[in-house]
């Protein structure tokens, strides 16, 4: 930690180091909770019979921890690192950087206390109660001010494409968070949404889908546009493609929310809008995949030795896969089978563990040596991490696909007399149980990989100056 990188006076790498540390720590916590959930679904006694440790309360803790704490801190680390270098300037305000960091960690700690206590708004991915929502709004605006302030004082004219992706996140998340959380407070911990019934559901899934779009997708694409060409030392395949798929993505994403409400009380026309816009998202998403993979032309031979490139290729492949699967799941007939089943869980984690997780790991392995000015402690441990993560994802996702399709088919199976063949829900649960154990195994491998990474980065950061990248 004491090492002062050469760039220290110009760039604020201290903030980057803090965000990296937070990413790794919250990642371990969030995924440990994920593994506990996986165990609870396979083996109910793991709920421990206590309200605070029951599945219903730990599930939102997992989703909030992995999305806002792990992914959130990772995005901030990557954005602070890359935007200073792209704009050739230090962050606009060190005070705001600091308020942003500590404010965000305070939100996470509050979430980790309130969710197990059962305080919730009952909206998925927006569970946190109104006082915390206000704090999120304030801290996010602090970040936004610092972000746009830095753009304003930039030393270059051109805004590299990564920044466009970051910008879409900063703006869209502000709007989404405020609109979805509009509520009338009743007590300190309880509030009533200003919307009701179907309107509330529609606003919620407009938020939910775009939270996926503008936290788990577009900003990661932005990071890919910076960290992948840097790591591969190859030019980006196509500037034109990057601009076109960017605008197509941000324009189309906003309309796709209703694909979460197919076959509900939502009017038919709105369901059609959700389905059709989701189908049109396929090509713009694949635009990002193409630009990523084709940027690696000429660097494929380094894939064998460089774990960072391995992580990128796997991440981008999972991105391509889940953005093919998503549009398919938006088709009414397919959703009729997949909705409510573990198929959705498979889709979520192919995106989350594959695309989000492996992109973050690639970025951390690139960035940590730079900001601590130390050579990576062990390349072979990073490679071990890669295989643990990738095999873990495959186990997780294949088990959940199988479980999902099996359950969907069991629900709709009739016998000759027209009666349900599996009238008891518990019949399906018994059938799925082995798959839940396989998912747990996959999840533990993935978690194990992160712990290996944590050790590797710790050794990197604390090694002595004989390992410095530059003297």
């Amino acid at each position, binding site marked *: 930690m004491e090492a002062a990188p050469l760039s220290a006076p110009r760039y604020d790498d201290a903030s980057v180091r803090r965000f990296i540390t937070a990413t790794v720590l919250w990642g371990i916590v969030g995924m440990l909770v994920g593994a506990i959930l996986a165990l609870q679904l396979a083996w109910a006694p793991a709920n421990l019979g206590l309200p605070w440790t029951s599945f219903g309360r730990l599930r939102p803790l997992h989703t909030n921890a992995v999305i806002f704490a792990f992914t959130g801190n990772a995005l901030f680390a990557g954005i602070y690192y*890359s935007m200073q*270098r*792209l704009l*050739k300037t230090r962050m606009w305000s060190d005070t705001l950087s600091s308020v942003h960091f500590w404010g965000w960690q305070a939100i996470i700690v509050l979430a980790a206390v309130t969710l197990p206590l059962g305080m919730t708004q009952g909206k998925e991915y927006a569970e946190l109660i109104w006082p915390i929502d206000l704090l999120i709004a304030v801290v996010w605006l602090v970040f936004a001010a610092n972000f746009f302030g830095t753009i304003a004082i930039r030393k*270059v*004219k*051109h805004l*590299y*494409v990564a920044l466009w992706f970051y910008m879409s996140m900063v703006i869209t998340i502000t709007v989404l968070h405020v609109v979805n959380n509009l509520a009338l407070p009743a007590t300190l911990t309880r509030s009533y949404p200003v919307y009701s019934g179907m309107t509330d559901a529609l606003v919620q899934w407009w938020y939910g889908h775009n939270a996926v779009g503008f936290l788990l997708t577009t900003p990661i694409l932005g990071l890919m546009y*910076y960290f992948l*060409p*840097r790591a591969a030392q190859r*030019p*980006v*395949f*196509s*500037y*034109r*493609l*990057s601009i*076109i798929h960017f605008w*197509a993505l941000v324009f189309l994403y906003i309309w796709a929310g209703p694909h979460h409400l197919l*076959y509900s009380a939502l009017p*038919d*026309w709105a*369901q*059609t*809008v959700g*389905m*059709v*816009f989701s*189908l*049109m998202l*396929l*090509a*713009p998403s*694949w*635009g990002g995949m*193409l630009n990523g993979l*084709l940027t690696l032309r000429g660097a494929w031979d380094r894939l064998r030795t460089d774990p960072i490139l391995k992580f990128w290729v796997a991440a981008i492949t999972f991105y391509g896969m889940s953005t093919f699967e998503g*549009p398919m799941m938006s088709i009414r007939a397919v959703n009729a089978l997949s909705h409510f089943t573990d198929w959705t869980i498979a889709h979520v984690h192919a995106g989350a563990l594959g695309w989000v997780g492996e992109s973050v790991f690639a970025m951390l392995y690139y960035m940590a040596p730079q900001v601590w000015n130390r050579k990576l402690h062990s390349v072979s441990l990073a490679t071990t991490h890669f295989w643990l993560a990738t095999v873990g994802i495959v186990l997780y996702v294949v088990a959940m696909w199988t479980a999902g399709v099996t359950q969907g088919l069991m629900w709709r199976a*009739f016998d*000759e*007399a*027209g*009666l*349900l063949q599996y*009238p*008891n829900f518990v019949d399906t649960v018994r059938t799925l149980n082995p798959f839940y154990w396989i998912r747990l195994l996959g999840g533990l491998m993935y978690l194990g990989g992160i712990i290996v990474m944590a050790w590797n980065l710790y050794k990197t950061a604390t090694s002595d100056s004989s390992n410095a990248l530059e003297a």
Partner: protein
Amino acid sequence: MSERDKVLGHADEADGIEEYDNPLPTWWLGLFAGTVAFGIGYAVDYHFVSKRSQAGEYAAELAAAPKAPEATAVAATPDAIAAGKEIYTANCVACHGPDLHGGVGPDLTDATWIHGGKLDEIAHIITVGVPEKGMLTWGPILGPQKVGQVAAYVHSAGGGQ
């Protein structure tokens, strides 16, 4: 090939990252145009040509579904009671207890009945259930024959009238 792999020359403004300005792959453009065309075509067809709807789909599925067989008369034969015991064990124990003395649901062996203790009354309440109290509507789940058997078993267990 002239257009291929020409760098734009912004690298000094992008932390050294070069960008080619390669044209969009044709198949990618085709895919994009294809999904847009399909989307518009689908929406027009669904709402204006085939005039489909969620309610219509439901009605059509109901009409196509095999009709549930008419209720068979309930007969309390020893065979029916034995079969009913198995159905009871598989479905009802959680709420009415292994020996029918109740739990979440009421005791089924005493003379007190909320919905009547005659065989056909028992069969009826099992068929329609009391969903607001947690007693499922077993008719569509078990079918009339199994409802008859489990009703016979309950009726034979002590409280039947």
